[in-house]
């Protein structure tokens, strides 16, 4: 049967962007993997790998349908797209539904993978895989429905946040960033601190890998943000400009503050800064102009950096700072939309306080932020607690001190036997 209404340009664009966003998850594996100690790098990276596996299966079976199917009261979709077998449906600006579903899948995958940073070195592998699958269904899918399912796009009726509240979130400040931050906090609290944290030094073992991961994330983020226009056009172009501007500004402000506070601009600081800037601009990239992006980026580099210090004050072991970078960065970006949004860049947006729009949009943004934090934290806490109390979530203390890679995967990332040594070589 002949399919009508497909716009080949937009379809090609979104297909390419979906592949770019897919690359962010392996990128995240390097970003996180380099930050842990050598004895747990494989487990860290495997948490991202298995997210690609599990979340994809959840998504193509029922996840996408529940997120973008016709809404039940603005809270959750229906089963109309189960199995993603409809090859004829076309949505938005001439994009096949299946292409849209794959673009959205990559968001679901990386959001789940992001949480792994909170439980470095100590989460058992299969309980993690179970967690990330169920979490996608009960936390990510409802949030994606609330904010991403726009009325009349994939289905007649979408979620309450986008349509009834009319909060603005271009590429995932709520469902991806704040969600992962709030959920990571819940997960870190349920699993508890690593042994001897923070007394024992847990230095990153491979900063070049962190920087490689940062590069892949940054590259993929153009698909994430500019791709969220879901059409190759001016709004996508603006999102590209604001994305680059904000991350660049965050790098500069982070390094300057770090130099002042700690004495040196560090590579881990630069890497964290780029991601913090990208996170903060994510919800705003399609609604603000270059000036807004610059301010959002500069603030992200300062606020996210200071937020990292909270975990030492409050004593939660969010090992790789998902809360400070994704949670706080997303929150910052969502709220600043209320100040810097302007319809000059996107008629589908709104005017913020600084563009004569009053306080209304800021209020709507705040409601979306609070609802996301409350929902994500609560449901994630209950889910992680259930897994913890039934099949167990955390490795034994001996495993933690000897290294989770050996115990969970029977592998070690690096052969530390010197190449020229004749002692200890058995093969």
């Amino acid at each position, binding site marked *: 049967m002949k399919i009508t209404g497909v716009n080949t340009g937009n379809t090609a664009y979104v297909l390419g962007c979906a592949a770019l966003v897919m690359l962010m998850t392996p990128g995240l594996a390097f970003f996180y993997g380099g930050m842990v100690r050598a004895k747990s790098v494989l487990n860290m990276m495997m948490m991202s790998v298995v997210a690609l596996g599990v979340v994809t299966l959840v998504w193509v079976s029922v996840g996408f349908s529940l997120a973008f199917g016709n809404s039940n009261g603005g809270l959750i979709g229906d089963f109309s797209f189960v199995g993603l077998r409809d090859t004829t449906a076309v949505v938005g600006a001439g994009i096949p539904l299946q292409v849209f579903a794959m673009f959205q899948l990559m968001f679901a995958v990386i959001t789940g993978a992001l949480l792994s940073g909170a439980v470095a070195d100590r989460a058992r592998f299969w309980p993690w895989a179970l967690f990330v699958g169920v979490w996608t269904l009960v936390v990510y899918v409802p949030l994606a429905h609330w904010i991403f399912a726009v009325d009349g796009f994939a289905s007649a009726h979408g979620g309450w946040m986008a349509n009834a509240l009319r909060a603005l979130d271009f590429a995932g400040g709520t469902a991806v960033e704040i969600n992962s931050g709030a959920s990571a906090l819940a997960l870190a609290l349920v699993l508890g601190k690593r042994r001897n944290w923070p007394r024992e030094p847990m230095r990153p073992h491979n900063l070049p890998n962190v920087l490689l991961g940062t590069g892949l994330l940054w590259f993929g983020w153009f698909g994430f943000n500019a791709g969220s226009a879901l059409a190759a056009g001016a709004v996508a172009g603006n999102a590209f400009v604001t994305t680059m501007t904000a991350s660049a500004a965050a790098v500069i402000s982070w390094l300057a503050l770090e130099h002042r506070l*700690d*004495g040196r601009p560090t590579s881990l600081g630069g890497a964290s800064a780029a991601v913090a800037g990208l996170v903060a601009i994510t919800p705003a990239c399609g609604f603000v102009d270059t000036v807004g992006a610059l301010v959002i980026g500069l603030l992200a580099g300062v606020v996210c950096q200071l937020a*990292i210090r909270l975990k030492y004050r409050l004593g939660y072991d969010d090992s790789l*700072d998902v809360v400070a970078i994704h949670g706080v960065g997303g929150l910052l970006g969502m709220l600043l939309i209320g100040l810097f949004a302007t319809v000059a860049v996107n008629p589908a947006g709104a005017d913020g306080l600084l563009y004569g729009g009053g306080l209304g949009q800021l209020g709507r943004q705040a409601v979306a932020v609070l609802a996301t934090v409350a929902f994500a934290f609560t449901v994630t806490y209950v889910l992680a607690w259930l897994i913890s109390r039934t099949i167990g979530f955390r490795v034994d203390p001996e495993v933690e001190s000897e290294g989770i890679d050996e115990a969970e995967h029977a592998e070690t990332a690096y052969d530390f036997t010197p190449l020229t040594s004749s002692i200890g070589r058995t093969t």
Partner: protein
Amino acid sequence: MILVTAIVKPFALGDVKDALERLGVLGMTVSEVQGYGRQKGHTEVYRGAEYTVDFVPKVRVEVVVADEVAGKVVDVVVEAARTGKIGDGKVWTTRVEQIVRVRTGERGADAL
């Protein structure tokens, strides 16, 4: 016979080796070691968290020489390893009772 032991900065090894060769010292044993003296370790900061690295990498050079050249050997090693900055290392000497060349069974000064 005297065992001269030098703990030096890793990058000084090349200069120390060249200096010993110029003096006619025919062999040496080198190992990578870690430790600290008066300079202590150093501090690294990761996302605001401070870690103190107590032990600093050094190279240990060991040569056994005849009594009459030991003083000269110590002098050239010290000169080659010195940068004038803290952490340059130490050189000390130890009297050696016996030395045997494994291949030939030669002993004492003949085995040097």
